[in-house]
């Protein structure tokens, strides 16, 4: 209170100063609006939980619905959603954490988990999950879906939504070419053949229809190709890239991917190299027969009259593999009312929340997936089935993945896509060295 009073006094002083400079009594009126943020909750009042999320727009509707249901069942708690979309979410929550003022519950993406958890931003949930009054049984989840929220064998975050990769295809273009639809368990070679048969050029040599739209230099998506080629990008102890990132398996994966763009020319060049998806729109326009991506744009595709949508699992390389993309909620270490926060968290991520989520994304709880018929749905079932083939993402091996290997790998992918004559082996060697130097440097500082 004294701080606020002294600020008011300072403003009064300012006003006096300004008035004295202009000697116009009554000519200056300043209205300073001060709205106080309560820092102390009086006894008996509602507990206010703050929840931070990176979702935006329509994606907020399920959040709000769940909050409504929870508040009705728990009248002593009020939940305040603090959403920030797109790339600035992390800037905001990091600033809040640094100032000691984060929301009670925080949503983060999978590759941020090691760093946040390692530095103590989240509370381990195992005890809460085992508690008698508000338990949560982890077996309700679909396979692999709670793994990204674990670190050092403890559960820190619970899943919110997830997506593996799959191949979208446009039945219209397959029908027009008289080709059978892709079958689950198809191989890289079959995939390439299909793409080639569906790539058409006109008399002038310009491509008017593409076989497959690829997600450009998306590094995390690329991990599927590495896993399917039987390789891995880093050693299991998380300290070494040499022998892994420059291994023959990785080289094969990069070469196959690059050839799709430059040798076989079945994939349109990226329109915009900025992060997600390369900015291409061929599939949406009905000018590409297939598309490799996550589940996020599916709703829009279903509404698109250019597309008669089908989905099939990822092709098999040396082995069948897939990677999971994931977002989850965790309980802030700095939360002032952890018990109330936990009550909401288990509602959010548990079966009750999953009932709401199923209309917006794939539910994380297997019972909900089965009961809503999603497991047998010709499209949704494919996504769920891919969960059986997950390979671990590279970031789980080191919290410094994003700062070291990710930019290096990205540069490799951008180079091979842009330059048909790129020397894959040399690029990978350089990338491995760069990543290793950066990693050694960071490890030395710890």
């Amino acid at each position, binding site marked *: 209170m004294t701080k606020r009073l002294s600020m008011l006094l*300072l403003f009064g002083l*300012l006003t006096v*100063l*300004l008035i*004295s*400079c202009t000697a116009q009594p009554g000519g200056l009126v300043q209205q300073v609006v001060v709205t106080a943020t309560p820092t102390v909750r009086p006894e008996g009042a509602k507990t206010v939980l703050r929840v931070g999320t990176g979702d935006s727009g329509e994606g907020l509707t399920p959040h709000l619905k769940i909050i409504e249901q929870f508040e009705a069942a728990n009248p002593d708690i009020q939940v305040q959603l603090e959403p920030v979309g797109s*790339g600035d979410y*992390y*800037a905001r929550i*990091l*600033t809040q*954490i*640094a100032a000691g003022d984060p929301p009670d519950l925080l949503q983060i993406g999978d590759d941020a988990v090691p*760093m*946040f958890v390692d*530095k*103590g*931003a989240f509370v381990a949930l195992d005890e809460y999950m085992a508690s008698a009054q508000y338990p949560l049984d982890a077996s309700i989840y679909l396979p692999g879906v709670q793994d990204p929220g674990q670190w050092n064998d403890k559960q820190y975050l619970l899943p919110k939504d997830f997506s593996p990769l799959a191949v979208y295809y446009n039945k219209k273009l397959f029908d027009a070419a008289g080709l059978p639809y892709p079958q689950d368990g198809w191989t890289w070679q079959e995939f390439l053949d299909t793409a080639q048969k569906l790539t058409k050029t006109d008399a002038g040599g310009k491509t008017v229809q593409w076989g497959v739209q690829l997600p450009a*230099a998306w590094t995390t998506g690329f991990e599927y190709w590495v896993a399917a080629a039987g390789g891995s990008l880093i050693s299991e102890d998380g300290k070494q890239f040499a022998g892994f990132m420059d291994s023959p398996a990785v080289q094969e994966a990069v070469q196959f991917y690059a050839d799709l763009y430059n040798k076989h020319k079945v994939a*349109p*060049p*990226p*329109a*915009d*190299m*900025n*992060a997600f998806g*390369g*900015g*291409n*729109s*061929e599939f949406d*326009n009905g000018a590409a027969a297939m598309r490799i991506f996550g589940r996020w744009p599916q709703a829009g595709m279903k509404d698109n009259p250019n597309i008669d949508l089908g989905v099939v699992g990822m092709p098999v390389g040396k082995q069948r593999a897939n990677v999971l993309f994931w977002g989850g909620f965790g309980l802030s270490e700095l939360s002032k009312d952890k018990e109330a926060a936990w009550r909401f968290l288990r509602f959010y991520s548990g079966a009750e929340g999953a009932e709401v989520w199923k209309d917006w994304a794939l539910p994380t709880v297997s019972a909900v997936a089965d009961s809503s018929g999603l497991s047998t749905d010709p499209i949704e079932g494919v996504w769920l089935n891919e969960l059986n083939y997950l390979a671990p993402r590279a970031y789980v091996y080191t919290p410094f993945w*994003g*700062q070291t290997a990710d930019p290096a790998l*990205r*540069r490799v992918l*951008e*180079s091979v896509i*842009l330059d048909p004559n790129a020397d894959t082996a040399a690029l990978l060697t350089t990338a491995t060295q760069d990543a290793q130097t950066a990693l050694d*440097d960071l490890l030395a*500082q710890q």
Partner: protein
Amino acid sequence: MQLDSRPRRPNRLARREAITFYLCISPWILGFLIFTLGPVAASFGLSFTRWDLLSPPVFTGLRNYTHMRDDKLFWQSLSVTVRYTLMYVPTELVGGLLLALLMNQAGVRGIRAVRTIYYLPTVISGVAFVVVWMWIFNPQAGLINATLARVGIEGPRWLADPNTALTALWMMSLWGLGRTAIIYLAGLKAIPPELYEAAEMDGAGSWPSFVYVTLPMLTPTIFFNLVLSIIATFQTFTSAFVATNGGPLDSTLFFVLYLYRKAFQEFQMGYAAALAWVLFLVILVLTLLVVRSGQWWVYYEGEKR
């Protein structure tokens, strides 16, 4: 009769003037002490630490600064920023003036609408505007390449090509000249018409009167725009953040974008602070050079003392 009482007057008057000066700028001093000094000193201190924002900062001495020497991306981002500034600042100064001259044509029909149109891109929120340009530059479906295709030319890949991405961003920024033009316009309006009338009576045509009346009287405005352009262009962020995220192949990795990434995506706030101070020094030195040079080419009608 001495009309100007300022030079060579007794100390008492000089002291009173000084006191009045400090009284008048006291709000700024107050604000500086409260809002600026603290955070700035903190950021300077942070530049000597390693800080991931999640746990307390750890003192590391000069390590951040020495690391820059070996940091390839530091030099890359500096190069990108300097090149872009060299491209953009002259075009802003000249282009803004041309635009202002066009805005100043009171006789043209609908000039008010025209001025609003020139200012329009500035008004449209940064993100939405950049997003529109991302479409315009789209190599397959975008406006530029589609129009070029009509006449049979295959356009470059703009934002998706490391050789043209920076140029594309530069083209995009030209649409934001309306703001600079308005400042020039205020400066143009401040030129007393008598000067032009006098020039005309001496037989000067429109070009000589531009060179000998308009330009000299505009030098305070040009000075303002030059200093501000240097300060602002070195800190370019939004367009790169939204349109290219520094790519492809780091060809649009602006310095502040690199800084932001280090701070909020790679958990290296201490290093980011050190980067910020390096940038500060660069901008400061350049600005000082310009300010110093001002005494030779800037003319103040009000006799700056």
